[in-house]
């Protein structure tokens, strides 16, 4: 640990992570600042895989905030809390990251993505998806449990909270093709015109599917939330599964997605 993993932006990073956002506008603000800082991490700069994820996450959170302002959710206090809780886990992982083998408190699934920040380079879409994987498959169920616990409601299918939660799927579906097009270079346009629709559809399904799994996992965790040993075991289990999936996304195989 002779040198910080964040290199020249070390100080800015640690200053930024001193703040703990407590509402959705503050989360958007934090992600925006993070985007700028991440874009200056050498050697890949704005091409680094975490940058790709952060950008997607920022876009999504901005859409959530827009919908909150527009009164589109039935239980905004639930969704606001969830959004803040959810983001807190990403920021926690960043706080815990001090380099490979030096970050006992950083979830493995996040560590897998973070250690690719200096390279080797990978395609932006699988990189963003690896972040989405960590965030949804690992962080989300816990964020859901904490939110429900705090608000004193149960995670019940078909409740208004569940419907609000499902709205986020639409936001993801809308954000992902956008991200793709943002990154397309010339030859990929060609591929995109050939199978773009199919590709988008597949992406949308994947998000839908994993988010549904997160909801189910949250319900499972809800039942055991008072049992620390059982929750810990489940956490390690989820971390393992998610990090295996993450590895796949960041492997050469993942480039198929691009």
């Amino acid at each position: 640990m002779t040198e910080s993993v964040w290199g020249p932006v070390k100080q800015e990073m640690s200053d930024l992570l001193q703040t703990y956002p407590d509402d959705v506008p503050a989360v958007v603000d934090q992600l925006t600042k993070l985007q700028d800082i991440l874009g200056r991490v050498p050697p890949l700069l704005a091409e680094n895989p975490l940058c790709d994820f952060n950008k997607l996450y920022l876009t999504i959170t901005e859409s959530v905030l827009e919908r909150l302002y527009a009164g589109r959710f039935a239980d905004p206090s639930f969704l606001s809390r969830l959004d803040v809780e959810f983001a807190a886990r990403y920021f926690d992982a960043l706080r815990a990251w001090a380099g490979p083998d030096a970050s006992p408190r950083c979830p493995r699934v996040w560590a897998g993505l973070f250690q690719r920040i200096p390279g080797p380079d990978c395609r932006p879409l699988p990189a963003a998806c690896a972040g989405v994987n960590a965030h949804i498959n690992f962080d989300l169920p816990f964020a859901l449990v904490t939110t429900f616990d705090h608000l004193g409601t149960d995670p019940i299918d078909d409740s208004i909270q569940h419907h609000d939660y499902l709205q986020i799927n639409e936001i993801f579906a809308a954000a992902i093709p956008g991200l793709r097009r943002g990154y397309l270079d010339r030859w990929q346009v060609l591929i995109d015109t050939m199978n773009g629709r199919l590709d988008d559809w597949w992406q949308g399904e994947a998000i839908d599917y994993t988010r549904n799994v997160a909801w189910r996992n949250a319900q499972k965790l809800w039942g055991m939330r008072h049992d620390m040993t059982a929750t810990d075991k489940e956490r390690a289990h989820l971390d393992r599964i998610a990090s295996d999936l993450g590895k796949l996304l960041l492997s050469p195989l993942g480039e198929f997605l691009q």
Partner: protein
Amino acid sequence: MASEEGDDGPLVGRTDTLAEIESDLRNVGPGGTAAVFVTGESGVGKSRLLRETARAMGDAGYSVLSGTCLDIGDASPLHPVLQALRQYQPDLQQWDQPTGADALLDRVSRDLRAVAGEKDLLLVLDDLQWADRSTRQLLLYLLAGLGGIRLSVLAAVRAEALHGAHPLRRVLAELRRLRSVRVVDLAPLDRDQTSELVSAIAGEGIEPEDADRVYKRSGGNPFVVEELARDLRDGRVELSDTLREIFLSRVDELPPAAHAVVHAVAAGVEPVEHTVLARVTGLAEAELIEAIRAAVAHRFVASSADGYRLRHRLVAEVLEAEVLEAEAASLHRRYAEAMEVSGAADHARLAHHWQRAGEPARALPSVVAAARSAEKLYGFTEAHRYWSLALDLTTDDAPERIELLAHAAESAHHCGEHQRALDRLAELSQRPDAPGECELHLRRARYLAAAGRSATAEVEYELALRSPDCTPQQRVSAAANLAELLLHLGRYADAYARATEALDQAAVNGSTRDLVRASAALGFSSAFREDPDAGLAVIRHAVEIAERSGHPDDLGVAYLHLAELLTGPLNSVEEGVLVARRGADRLAALGAGRTYQTRLLAIAGNGLFRVGQWAEADAVLEAAMRHRPSGADAVELLLARCRLWVGFGDVEAAQRDLDAVATLLAGGGARHVLPMLTLRAGLAMWQGRHAQARAAVQRGLTETRSDDLVLLGVLAWHGLRAEAEARAAGEAVDPGAIRRLKTVVDRMAQGVGNAATPVRAVVDGYLDLCNAELSRVEEKHDPDPWQRAATAWDRRKQPYPAAYARLRRAEAALTRKSRKAAAVLALREAYATATAMGARPFAAEIVSTAHRFRVALADDVDTQELGGPGAEDDGLAVLTQREREVLAAVAEGLTNREIGERLYISERTVGVHVGHIFDKLQVRTRVQASRVYLTAA
């Protein structure tokens, strides 16, 4: 965690942290409390830090109480705090049965106060991650200042626990925003600190590469560093890298009896008493003492006055993995037997051992006893877990299962585990010995309604009403409850019908409780359906019935409903306040219904605020706070009182109450977030902190439900006002914020058409204010929208917003230089209202406006700026603003009655203020008080 005093290694690398923690703990906030939470991984030295701090602060004259939370999964409620108290009061068990959760918390606070005496109190809690829910709530209650104790809390939390969905994670996230709370993350030692510690233990002659190896192996964890350094010192060559192997090799070196002692302590619940240990190990006294000595010498076990502990949890965890299942079971059996022999009353602990001993049948009685005693302490979460455990211990055909299921469902319902409650009920209904169909529907409906699943709850009530086995009593109860539910859903016509149905039969078949409930539902639905008189008559009748029954619950509910109806939809605030106070007095005379008294006084306080009698409101809220409410009741009172402070301009008190609210809300509760944010914005505006005000409102906008029109109205008004004030102060307005606020105003305007008349009147008032603020943001200087707003609030008989609108109206007119005479009149009216209420920041704003336009506010007096609140330090600083005003009048030689007339408060309230003034100034006569005043002035 248990490394005990006496044989600690030197403390390395923590000097600064220690000093900071101590200073943070001393630095209590305005609420009189401070807290430091130390987080870090196991073995990083949290307990050590706690111990060192406790010692230092004890030496400095603090009264120190320490407790440790247990990891047995099912500790009894409030365990660590009661454990701490028992150090002073061994007979703590013999508490009078407290009547309600409020009373229990109050009781604990009183005991803590008694222990503290004249000293400041430091409460040290180790292993807080294992704290039960009751303990967490008590902690928040104390930190919010509700216990009335000056208190510092120092607690340790394992960092590992905060990763998943542990409830403390959220609590700490909220608390760390407060000025009086600090979360200290204890990091492992770095390379140099590790070397320092190694040298301190093993002597100076250590090779650098050895020290380096220790650093690599231990990762800087001080506990492991110390152990490895000792090996180094003793010339032991460590072959293994893992903590586990290091310790196992040492266990092997123990003499057999000491070996048994270590394993026995590891299986016990710490601290393990000597007599219990003797029974568990079966060793003769002399042999036992020798074995313990060996275990202590080998640094496994620590001994203290209350028993034995392992030196560190990490050791227990290593040993746990080594013991065979059968061995462990036999140890637990011996513990259980030993406890039964000694007749210990700790059901939770006994249950734990029997269960681990693999003897479910013998565990059952203790589990049930533990559940019942948890319920006595209002620990429904813990009780629910015991009932569930009891169910796990019994088979389907056990005859007691039906009762256990019923208890499990009911306790789940009480602790907010709605889905669990429903699941238990579902299981219960499948059984051949289940209660009747109607009964089941009623219960299910009750649970569903509590879970907020109104539509399904409604169906269940209807099914209950249609059940063939529905008795007349059940019919009344179902209809009354359904009416109440429909009322909450805003379906007034349906609620009216159901309430009528219930009342028709209630006279013959209903309990007073159902009668009161049905009357209330009828009263409210009538009021909302624009036939208030009929509704009022019904509720008044219900009050009479309750008076005749004399039961505190009936009285409480009846008075509550009548007062709410009057102050709410009927807007007869004065009368509502009278009713609320009469009800509170009535219950106080009965010596019962403390929660109802608190709620009634809260209604009175809120009503008095609205009609502008702020000093009186202050007195009422203070009386309510003396009931020491907890939970949602406390939050509501604090919010009401804070609104007064904001109005009075007492920034410090307002901040204190806002912090207290935030502390309580860290434990959960979404309903009160919006009022808190609104107050935060209001306070920030008077302080000229527009950025803060705007941020609070914007956050509020992301949490507002679109159907809460009134809350939305207050929030939008605050938001637009903040933008307007920012513009007036020469700052840029935020076009995004304005656009969003306009959207909200549009939404309100659309929604208001469907609202019930009483709601519409209030929302219209806020819409007027919003539109007027919008014209101010656009710098139109148009007095007309403000005039409309003033008229609307006059009609609502609420002087504060009306006077505010008058000020703005005058300001607009004076800027335009039109209708000056009317403007001056409006300004003077506003000023009279503001001073009568004691609204200092508002009055100051009027004065500065008057100055700006060179308007005299009164013919015979020079207008002068009222000084900022709390600015003076003249020996009268202990007094509240209101008390100063009263004292000034006392010094003029006025009687209480005359003072009351001048300040628009009752003679009695003046008396209360005078009493407070005497206490605070430590004088006994009016003359003495006047002298203090005149000297200071």
